[in-house]
């Protein structure tokens, strides 16, 4: 029994190690995984920053708020969007390993061995989470560097919570992308899917422009995307420091900016803050994980009984 457990942990370890090796040896795929969040950053620096700063300033024309403070505030809004987008797009592109295995017949090879059937799916999910987490922490580090240059507004607890939220967001996105990619059969489909997702997700979770600028109907649709809550939470953590400094000068700005930059979300008519956002986000994640678990168990049982259908 004891040696059986050791066997299984070695299998799991080797499967995960294999995925990490394959991903890291493919330098281009690492680069492309990081591309989407870096594009958000570039678009912001090149186009969006000034527009957003002007928009905030026009709201408080008669209040003497330092331009630098506003710039810090808008910067942290953008950084929150970058990391929120990264958690999702990186997870989706890291699924290329699972899909390539299906496409190339590697999965069939694995299934021809006596490896416990359920272990395969677990290994894919854990590998995806580890890979995504590493890359997202790189993106987070870049965000911190950016902020250190443009004006640091985070407390130590903000930083710790950001690290934790990145982990939860990656787990959530990893599970969801695994579920969706069960249906994807070829690398070509996966490439197209990642391309579209990367383009759409930035808008959907309010990374390119605040959700509050969208029509109500669209805002309500975004409430069904788990990433929306993840992004709102990132904004709360990233922007609170800068917002407090602005509120010290203009208390009236606090409430206004929270709404305008979607730190608070309009949940079908009710305004929800960080705590409820977190609760909903966790609920979404647990639900996704539950669905994943059920599907994996059914698959494992089918495979165990030798009831697989390939092609």
């Amino acid at each position, binding site marked *: 029994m004891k040696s059986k457990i050791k066997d299984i942990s070695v*299998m799991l370890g080797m499967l995960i190690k*294999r995925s990490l090796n394959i991903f890291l040896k493919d330098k281009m795929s690492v680069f492309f995984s990081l591309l989407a969040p870096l594009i958000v950053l570039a678009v912001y620096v090149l186009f969006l920053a000034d527009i957003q700063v002007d928009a905030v300033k026009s709201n408080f024309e008669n209040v003497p708020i330092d331009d630098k403070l506003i710039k810090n505030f808008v910067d942290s809004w953008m950084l929150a969007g970058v990391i929120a987008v990264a958690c999702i797009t990186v997870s989706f592109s890291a699924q290329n390993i699972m899909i390539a295995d299906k496409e190339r017949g590697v999965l069939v090879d694995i299934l021809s061995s006596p490896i416990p059937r359920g272990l395969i799916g677990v290994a894919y999910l854990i590998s995806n989470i580890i890979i995504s987490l590493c890359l997202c922490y790189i993106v987070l580090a870049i965000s911190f560097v950016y902020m250190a240059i443009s004006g640091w507004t985070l407390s130590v607890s903000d930083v710790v919570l950001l690290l934790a939220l990145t982990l939860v967001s990656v787990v959530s996105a990893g599970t969801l992308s695994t579920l969706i990619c069960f249906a994807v059969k070829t690398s070509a489909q996966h490439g197209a899917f990642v391309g579209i997702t990367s383009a759409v997700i930035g808008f959907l979770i309010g990374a390119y422009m605040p959700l509050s600028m969208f029509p109500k109907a669209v805002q309500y649709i975004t409430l069904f995307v788990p990433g929306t809550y993840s992004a709102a939470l990132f904004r709360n953590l990233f922007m609170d420091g800068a917002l407090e400094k602005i509120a010290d000068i203009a208390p009236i700005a606090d409430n206004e900016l929270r709404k305008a930059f979607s730190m608070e979300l309009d949940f079908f008519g009710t305004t929800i803050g960080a705590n409820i956002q977190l609760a909903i986000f966790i609920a979404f994640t647990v639900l996704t994980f539950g669905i994943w678990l059920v599907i994996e168990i059914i698959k494992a049982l089918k495979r165990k009984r030798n009831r*697989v259908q390939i092609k």
Partner: protein
Amino acid sequence: MQNIIEISELKKSFGSVRAVDDITFSVEEGSLFAFLGLNGAGKTTTINIICTILKKDSGKVNVAGFDLDVAPEKVRENIGVVFQKAVLDDSLSVYDNLCVRASFYGIYGNKRKDRIDELSKILSLDEIIKRPYGKLSGGQRRRVDVARGLIHSPRILILDEPTTGLDPQTRKAVWNVIENLRKDLGMTVFLTTHYMEEASSADDVVILDAGKIAARGTPNELKEAYSYDLLTVYSPKNDVLDKAFADLKFLYENGAYRVNVLNGEHAKRILSEYGAYIPDFELRKGDMDDVFLNVTGKKLVGGEQ
């Protein structure tokens, strides 16, 4: 000799296509068993069922004493598979690839190192063991694929068209490796092929056609039963010859009759009898190619054409 694989009344359909249609056969322990058939004859389907990766519709499969339906994991422990497509990771080294696969069978640590060293010797992998699998040549890759199949010292090695797509020289080399495995290690080797020369060095051959077993036996038995000498008669199509060959299997193509004759005697009789109508001819002795063609009828057909 004991049967190590026993298959009875195996059936598998994909939609309306009967890929494997009620086949029954067995493989003796320690033999080299060849499955011969055209693409789409059902060879790979049968292999995938034996390897427990494809569901069968009905029938019984027993591998190394274990029923596929009852103990598929025991079947998996006893077979090593070399798939038609390369299924190792291109970016990883040969050694890393083998380590990952070894872990699937509960082999790690010193045991793993010893096994890889051993296989490395048998299959001469020493020079390529550190190189990425994707950078190897076709023949080198096949040797690594075989090593992967053998990593857990299975009792049966199953190879799905191991030499397809290789150049003739490499094909020969890979084939030698396979033959040596059986001779030196006494393994049961089950392979599919569409090369007649490979089938002719097997102990036992099953010819599969459209999902059914068309013939079975040792290469010699098959040659005796199914190969004919081929008489080619260069002549315009005419009634006299049509009638003369009506009882034999023949085909008219490219301005010549192609007729199956039993032997040289038979050919001589035909030539002397119809000599006046035969301006030119050619006689070729039968081989495994003919066995296959005659059994499956894929090329030579009866007189109605």
